[in-house]
């Protein structure tokens, strides 16, 4: 089992519970869409799975590593090595060029594969944009760079939170297609948070989050 | 001059200001200074020199002159000595202070100058024999007091005059003991009123040769005024018939105190006691912000004197540190002549 979420609880500061006893599993190569209303806690769950934040109860195991005993440093190492992330916005490091952004995560994880990176840039239509800075790219282009950067690590698990949420329909479809095909190609597992049923329908499984539970 | 308030007080407060304005502190005690006594035996030339153990002393010369141009002139040359302590010392340590006043009065204008000096360093002083009184470049110098040359200068005037005495010294009051108030304050006081004068006045318009008559007063004391006395009017008159008159009035809260000396051409004196003479202002002139009597009715019934005395130049104001009026006068009435008038305390 690649990702095992077991009875996880999480409250916002102030005590309002967001997640109560959420359990979920994801196997290698599987894709899972996590849907739910705004504020249902789907992004929170994804962030917990990505070792970005700590949780109050239960356990999450990622590729055999239990997350709850990890400190800041352990979680950072896990993010570096075991997951890739694509967010809705501000994925990129503004001070680095597209090229530098693309390879940043892979280099950080010591897994840079220049051939693969070049192939990714080509396939994502970024080859001509490598020396540009993120602020000079369109939203679709920025998200493609984010996907490229995520896939450059050849991750076992890709976590994506509304990756097309800020894009128009065409760009959105384009980005989603690219992401799904790359995931399929590399055998990565995908946990995708979305509010769109259309998008959710394109994935292997779906889970719906409401009232702090998976329903 | 300037607002040297401190210095004004310094030099004048004790002797002269009190003389004129009745400074209360001097009414009685003389703070270790000698005081004049009756029956003093004058000794000359010694007594022409300074008396440092007395608080105040002066050599006071005035002259009525006529120029080659036919105009009348008056001159004043005065050296005051004032002692802070009844002693003398060398250099800056001397407690003696000196002040010189000089003036030339023309029918239109009054020029004056003032000099100040410490004793002890030689800048000012008086030597009895041979006689010399000086402050800065001003001097009254003789072989003796019968023959003196006189010099003074200011920014606008200068004069050089030769004086020759034509008569004896004249002693006022009781043989030189001159009483100044009903309480008995007194000074030593003698004069040489018989100087014949000739010389040159140097005025802004040029030199004027002059001749005329001069009158020297010598006076020293330590406690000259009564506490209520506020000022005085002093007359020295030379009549055309050869007689001369010294008369003064000390104005006081308890009434005036007057005294006079009638001087015959041969120098014989007749002292006239308090009340003999009367002085009535007839007219005043606005000078330096004050009303100063410049026309007087003076009578001395004992001598049949009934005259009108008028200032030649009404604004003969001495705007020195201690201010007063001093200038030539003309006499008309029962007697005619010329003279000098000094008025303080206005």
């Amino acid at each position, binding site marked *: 089992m690649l990702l095992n979420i077991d009875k996880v609880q999480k409250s916002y500061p102030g005590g309002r519970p967001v997640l109560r006893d959420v359990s979920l599993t994801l196997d290698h190569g599987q894709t899972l869409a996590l849907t739910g209303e705004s504020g249902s806690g789907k992004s929170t769950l994804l962030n917990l799975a990505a070792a970005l934040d700590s949780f109050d109860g239960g356990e999450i195991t990622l590729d055999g590593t239990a997350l709850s005993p990890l400190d800041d440093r352990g979680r950072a190492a896990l993010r*570096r090595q075991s997951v890739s992330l694509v967010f809705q916005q*501000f994925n990129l490091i503004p001070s680095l060029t597209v090229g530098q952004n693309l390879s940043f*995560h892979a280099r950080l994880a010591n897994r840079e594969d220049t051939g693969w990176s070049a192939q990714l840039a080509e396939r994502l239509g970024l080859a001509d944009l490598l020396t540009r800075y993120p602020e000079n790219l369109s939203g679709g282009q920025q998200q493609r760079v984010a996907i490229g950067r995520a896939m450059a690590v050849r991750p076992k698990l890709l976590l994506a939170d509304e990756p097309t949420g800020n894009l128009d329909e065409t760009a959105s479809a384009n980005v989603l297609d690219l992401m799904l095909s790359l995931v399929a190609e590399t055998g990565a597992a995908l946990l995708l948070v979305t509010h769109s049923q259309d998008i959710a329908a394109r994935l292997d499984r779906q889970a719906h989050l409401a009232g702090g539970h998976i329903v | 001059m300037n607002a040297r308030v401190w210095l004004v007080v*310094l030099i004048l407060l*004790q002797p002269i200001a009190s003389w004129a304005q009745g400074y209360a502190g001097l009414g009685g005690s003389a703070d270790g200074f000698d005081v004049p006594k009756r029956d003093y035996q004058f000794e000359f030339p010694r007594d022409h020199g300074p008396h440092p153990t007395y608080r105040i002393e002066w050599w006071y010369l005035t002259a009525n002159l006529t120029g080659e141009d036919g105009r009348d002139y008056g001159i004043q040359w005065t050296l005051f000595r004032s002692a802070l302590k009844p002693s003398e010392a060398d250099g800056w*340590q001397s407690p003696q202070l000196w002040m010189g006043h000089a003036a030339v009065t023309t029918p239109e204008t009054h020029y004056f100058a003032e000099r100040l000096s410490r004793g002890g360093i030689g800048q000012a002083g008086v030597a009895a024999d041979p006689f010399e009184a000086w402050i800065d470049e001003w001097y009254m110098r003789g072989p003796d007091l019968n023959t003196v040359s006189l010099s003074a200068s200011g920014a606008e005037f200068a004069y050089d005059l030769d004086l020759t005495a034509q008569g004896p010294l004249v002693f006022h009051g009781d043989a030189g003991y001159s009483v100044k108030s009903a309480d008995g304050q007194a000074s030593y006081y003698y004069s040489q009123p018989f100087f014949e004068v000739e010389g040159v006045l140097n005025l802004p318009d040029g030199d004027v040769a002059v001749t005329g008559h001069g009158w020297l007063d010598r006076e020293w004391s330590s406690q000259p005024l009564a506490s209520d006395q506020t000022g005085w009017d002093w007359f020295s008159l030379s009549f055309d018939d050869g007689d001369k008159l010294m008369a003064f009035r000390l104005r006081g809260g308890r009434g005036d105190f007057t005294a006079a000396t009638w001087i015959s051409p041969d120098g014989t004196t007749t002292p006239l006691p308090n009340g003999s003479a009367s002085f009535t202002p007839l007219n005043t002139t606005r000078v330096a912000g004050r009303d100063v009597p410049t026309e007087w009715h003076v009578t001395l019934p004992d001598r049949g004197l009934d005259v009108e005395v008028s200032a030649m130049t009404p604004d003969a104001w001495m705007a020195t540190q201690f201010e007063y009026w001093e200038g030539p006068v003309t006499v008309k009435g029962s007697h005619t002549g010329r003279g000098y008038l000094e008025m303080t305390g206005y």
Partner: protein
Amino acid sequence: MTFAIVQALLSHWRRHRLQLATLLIGIALATGLWSAVQAINAEARASYQRASDQLALGLYDTLRDPSGTIAVDRYVALRRAGWQVSAVLEGPVRIAGRTVQVMGVDMVTYPALPAMTQTEQSDAPPDPSDMLTAPGRLLATPELAEHLKSQTELPPIVVSDAVPPDLILTDIGVAETLLNRPRQISRLVILPDQPRGVPALSEIAPDLQRVEASAQLDTQRLTDSFHLNLTAFGLLSFAVGLFIVNGTVGLAFAQRRAMIRTLRALGVSMRRLVWMITAELTLLALIGGALGLVLGFFLAGALLPDVAATLRGLYGAPVDGQISLQPEWALAGLGMALGGTFLASGHALFRLSRMPILTGAGVQSWRSSTSGQRFSFLIGTALITGGFAIGYTVEGLVAGFAMVGGILTGAALVLPYFLTLALSVFQRRARGPVAQWVWADMQAQLPGLSLALMALLLALAANIGVGTMVSSFRLTFVGWLDQRLTSELYVTARDDQQGKEIAQWLGPQVDAILPIRNVELTHETGPLFLYGVVDHETYRDHWPLIASSDSAWDRVLTDQAVLINEQLARRADLWPGDMLTLNAEHTLTIAGVYSDYGNPTGQAIVSMQQLDLIAPGAETRQFGIRVSPERATELAQALRDRFDLSRQAVVQQAAVKAQSLAIFDNTFVVTSALNVLTLGVAGFAILTSLLTLWTQRLPQIAPVWALGLTRAQLARLELLRSVLLAALTAVLALPLGLVLAWALLAVINVQAFGWRLPMFLFPVDWAYLFVLTLLAAAVAAALPALRVLRLPPADLLRVFANER
């Protein structure tokens, strides 16, 4: 409506209290440092003016005897020739371990002395006859009176506020006893009204020298350069403070763009908004300015005693150690605060007024615009070039400061360009992704930080420059003291007679007796002190000549030539081979120029025979005694015992050196204090800039954090970034500081003091300053770094979600 707008505008400050505090502190610091310097200058100038007024100095021409003092008989002779002159005897006297100036005037003839008049008009005026007769009275300030109280042998003291500090005013009769100079007069004041027909002074007193009132040595003129120095420092501090204001106002405006856009959309005219923001800035400037005045007042109060000590020590200028609040000063300070605030916010205000109504409120492009940088580089280069051009072509102290100002401003403007250049090189060389990001990120942050870094550059350069100048000066000065103070003992006799006796007694016991005699002459450049020397190896071997012709000493000692000090040489542009006119009869060839520090006036040296020819009356009271060093102490005591001399009258070499060095060190206490303050302000500027950049920081670090860096790592990188930028700036500040030091030593000093100093380098000091800079940068970045460390992940995550 106005109220609603005001409320909307002010709500910004309520939400950003730290920003408000920063802005006010910035204004207050700028105003405070500037005002402190102004207050010190004003107080010192007021002191000179007061002293000069109180003593009626510079109103009258004076007569002096170049060869020494005037005898009282001489004074009387002039008086008796008709000249209206008045006598003054003055000199220093050491009482209870403190040197005070005694001014004795002939109270009877001296013209109006405001000090006396005021004293007389006081509540308890002294009795005039007490003033003039023994023991006399001494007029002194309350402070000095307190110091003199215990001295029972002194005449009674009359306390007066109308007397300058450190001066005893008294009658000349008292002064001659106090100074032990009976029947001597220092100078005669020529009164304005002279009688008719006085003989010309040239006939009756050809030996006395008439000095015009306007030509008299004026304390104010003498100390002008010192005050200009202080002013320059004050201006530098002010500029550094303005960097803070500029940064904060820029941020506040940027953050309020959205609100302003909303207000405009609601129908508020731009004109009205600009007007109201102007009013708001005015209010802030006034509050900050008022705080600055308070700060400046206390700062000036703290610094003034040292300044006063310096001015007294270096120039003998009387300065009160007490600061008093003057309305002009407060107004000027507020004016500077207002002017400075608008200068610093003008650009932001202008941009705001030009903002189209529909411009996005988003984060402005933060990548440095290369064209703007190039423009400021060009301006900066032009300023540096202009600065050097002025320095080389125009004479004068102001030109010197213009040069330094041009170079400093220019250097500040080219700084961002150089930093960008350096950072690109580092980025290209960086291997690891994190390193690459750090360099790239620093480059991105540069525009926001460049003003603060400019401030740091200026502060560092000033520190290095002034430090190098002071240290070079000190090193030179110590070496010069060693050369110049070769005699083991220095003896001052009471008068010529005692001088003769001392010389006679010492003759057989010592290696050499070197008389030190001088007279004061005047030269077109100011007073000129002429010294006579005897032939001795002490001079030949040790005298510090900086320029000389062949066999200079031989020619001087055979009466053919003269040596002059550097001050005179530079002021009058006289060098070996030129002629120096000492007076109407004496003109000599200049054989050499010697360095002469610590005295502002011109000096010349001739043989003793020449001195006697020029000024026969010169005193022979001072001697340098050559004796084996181990005998010096014993001999000094023997001299004191035998001739009843005070400790001050027989001084050993070491004591003179120590005293000279103490005065020297005192001179630069204020400079150092201002230096440290400027550096502190620069550090604060970095802090405010970092805080300003904070809001733009999250989108920069959130992705990096998400990709696997811990917050602790990020916090460390925050510190490192600040330290690295400061280090880069410091590296660039070093050459700038050295250029500044060179300018101070070779241009400013020559103009201000009349001497040029060799430059020495002090790498240890630089290292120390470098460490201090890094520390300051680390401290400045500590707060933002701590924030990163404590940042809740939720805040970082919010960056990525849309609900921001």
